[in-house]
């Protein structure tokens, strides 16, 4: 057959494996926003000492309010799509897509688990396994700003435009401390590839957060600003500027923006866990120990099960950071816009530069 001449067996296997990985990543990313909707309503209830929505149920199964999230999703889908008459049609339809695509692309670059051995081939558990690992993530997430900018412009609405410009300026400004905080990590771990960084963090004292604490501090703050989450959510908060750049966007388009925001949060949480908290590794247990334990149970699929365990660990760590996002949102008041920009440019940027110099000095001192 002609196909055999073009692609070899290895490539067919890798292509099929890639499709399966893409499917897994997309499914995980698509279940995060509905779960987060539920968390966003029950967590503030917990923090504010009340009960959140817990009435919606199907056949008396209320599942602590998860049905509310499903009801919200169904409502969003069935709402009427309204396009304002004076809006710029082309960009109005495209903007949400431009918001979601970078979010999903960045999600595909995160290592969800260790390399697995299937049928004799080594399959890395990342869809995109480039040499310039998290540089790719930074680059693609900087394209996500276009969704917001074009959304505000397409709405042809003063408040939308102002909100979107403020949002984009904020996101672009906080990309700098984000990038600067990751440079000392590159210096310490000597690689851009995320999987190698995870593998280097074998014991708990080798975790990124202990090797580069200022980096973690900078990254944690920039994480909030990059996703337009409180306390940096002036541009899209409910009590300011109506709803910022997504005022005019109805049902499915709003759902897409919503998804983009939560997937961004999820990706940054996973990135934080990967870079600073050991990624898919369980704290005091090395990967080989896990494989050893699992080999006692089943011979063939030990590495596969170990990968599943790794995935679960990463998801638990990312879940902790998602909870952190929600916790901070419902605890801290929001920044005024000029305070926000002043913080980014006048405090975090010099701190990031100082951090790089400091880390370089320590590395030089330890080497010589």
């Amino acid at each position: 057959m002609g196909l055999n001449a073009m692609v070899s067996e290895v490539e067919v296997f890798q292509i099929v494996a890639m499709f399966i990985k893409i499917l897994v990543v997309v499914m995980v990313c698509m279940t995060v926003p509905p779960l987060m909707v539920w968390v966003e309503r029950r967590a503030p209830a917990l923090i504010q000492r009340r009960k959140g929505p817990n009435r919606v149920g199907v056949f008396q199964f209320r599942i602590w309010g998860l049905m509310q999230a499903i009801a919200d999703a169904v409502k969003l889908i069935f709402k009427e799509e309204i396009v304002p008459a004076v809006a710029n049609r082309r960009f109005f339809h495209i903007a949400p897509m431009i918001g979601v695509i970078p979010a999903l692309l960045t999600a595909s670059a995160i290592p969800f688990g260790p390399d697995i051995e299937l049928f004799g081939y080594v399959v890395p558990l990342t869809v995109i396994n480039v040499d310039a690992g998290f540089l790719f993530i930074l680059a693609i997430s900087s394209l996500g700003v276009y969704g917001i900018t074009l959304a505000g412009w397409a709405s042809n609405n003063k408040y939308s435009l102002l909100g979107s410009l403020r949002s984009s300026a904020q996101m672009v400004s906080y990309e700098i401390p984000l990038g600067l905080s990751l440079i000392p990590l590159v210096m310490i771990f000597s690689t851009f590839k995320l999987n190698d960084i995870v593998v280097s963090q074998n014991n708990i004292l080798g975790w990124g957060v202990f090797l580069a604490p200022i980096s973690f501090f900078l990254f944690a703050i920039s994480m909030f600003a990059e996703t337009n989450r409180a306390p940096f959510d002036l541009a899209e908060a409910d009590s300011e500027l109506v709803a910022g750049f997504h005022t005019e966007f109805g049902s499915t388009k709003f759902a897409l923006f919503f998804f983009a925001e939560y997937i961004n949060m999820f990706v940054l949480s996973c990135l934080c866990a990967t870079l600073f908290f050991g990624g898919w590794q369980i704290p005091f247990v090395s990967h080989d120990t896990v494989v050893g334990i699992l080999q006692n149970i089943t011979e063939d699929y030990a590495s596969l099960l170990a990968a599943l365990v790794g995935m679960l660990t990463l998801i638990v760590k990312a879940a902790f950071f998602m909870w952190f996002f929600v916790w901070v949102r419902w605890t801290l008041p929001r920044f005024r816009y000029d305070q926000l920009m002043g913080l980014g440019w006048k405090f975090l940027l010099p701190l990031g530069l100082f951090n790089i110099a400091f880390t370089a000095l320590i590395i030089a001192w330890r080497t010589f």
Partner: protein
Amino acid sequence: MGATLLFGIFAFLIVACSLMVVLAKDSVVSAVFLVADLFVMACIYALLGADFVAAIQVLVYAGAILILFLFVIMLLNLDIVAARTNAGPLEIGMFIVVLIGFGILVVNLLLGERIELLPPGDSGLSITGKGNSYDLGLVLFSKYLWPFEMASVLILLAMVAGVLIAKRGKKKQP
């Protein structure tokens, strides 16, 4: 074979996007097509073995500079300006010269001698085995250290100049 197909797709996209950049009437449409153009260029750079530069192109060029363009267009709320209809002999002359140059290059493509690219993973393009970023860092900070420092001074100058030029003048005291 796959690489050639990919290059063909990217080349077609670049041709389409470049034409749309210069032919679109609305500046925002131009800017968005330029972003698409830069993104496809980054894909071609990655295909040609320059992953770090590709990432930097998206991060800096498509992700910051063009957002600056979009900001200026949106903040100034610019009207659509029609294309030039009063092109003088100077413009037409320059255009014909560039057209002739392009024609010469096309003829060279069709009839001239082929210059082959190095196959991927060649030893010249990867000095150590540790990836493009590592090698670029080695070369940048040894052979090109002076231009690197000058570039940082240049960026500082541009920042100061940008702020000064765009600042509103002081309001005169009554």
